[in-house]
């Protein structure tokens, strides 16, 4: 059986605010065994597709499975890299172009572990987590985003 008690909810409604990210950094000032943070911020791009501009992405997810997969990625990352802590937040609902939709924050005693771990986490999230994105155009049409 899956242990659901330790599975965190990664999802936040709407965009991830820059203030939230700043506060998250500030909270780590008391953890003085950390020597290096690395942060990934995914931002919604205003792609132009067939002369129409993406104004926002509306995210949805198979939430229960997604949280389970985020948890597995998290556990795998801790077992591969020597990290002090890790935080992952992903948006659900509408995120406008220019706003943040993914925030991954890893901390370690030393930079190399933090940098390697961060790349691993982000790539794993892209491949393994069932999150879906509807790219909304200015004329209210849409298309579905696919990760490369």
């Amino acid at each position: 059986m899956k242990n659901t008690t330790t599975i965190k909810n990664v999802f936040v409604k709407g965009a991830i605010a820059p203030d939230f990210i700043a506060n998250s950094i500030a909270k780590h000032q008391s953890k003085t065994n950390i020597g290096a943070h690395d942060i990934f911020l995914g931002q919604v791009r205003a792609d132009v597709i067939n002369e129409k501009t993406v104004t926002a992405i509306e995210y949805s997810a198979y939430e229960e499975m997604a949280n389970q997969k985020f948890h597995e990625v998290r556990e795998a990352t801790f077992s591969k890299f020597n990290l002090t802590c890790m935080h992952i937040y992903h948006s659900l609902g509408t995120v406008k172009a220019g706003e943040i939709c993914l925030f991954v924050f890893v901390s370690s005693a030393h930079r190399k572990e933090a940098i390697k771990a961060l790349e691993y986490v982000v790539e794993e999230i892209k491949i393994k987590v069932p999150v879906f994105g509807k790219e909304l155009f200015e004329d209210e049409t849409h298309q579905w985003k696919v990760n490369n």
Partner: protein
Amino acid sequence: MSLTIKYFGMLAEVTKCNEELIEVNECTIKELTSKLLEYHPDLKSKNFKVAVNQSLVDEDILITSKDEIALLPPFAGG
């Protein structure tokens, strides 16, 4: 047996529902998928994976009545 099938993203758009209840005999994922393509021919042009109890599985897996089945379009997280 009755099975609830969940659809996400562009697949929910095609089937016009987030989930539906269907009646099937004991079958594999492959057999279930071909049945769903009969119900929803527009799914044929879509790329999707099947999750059973929140894990992606091989199409030879046998389904039981307690399984949670979901059709997942390509992922777009991040």
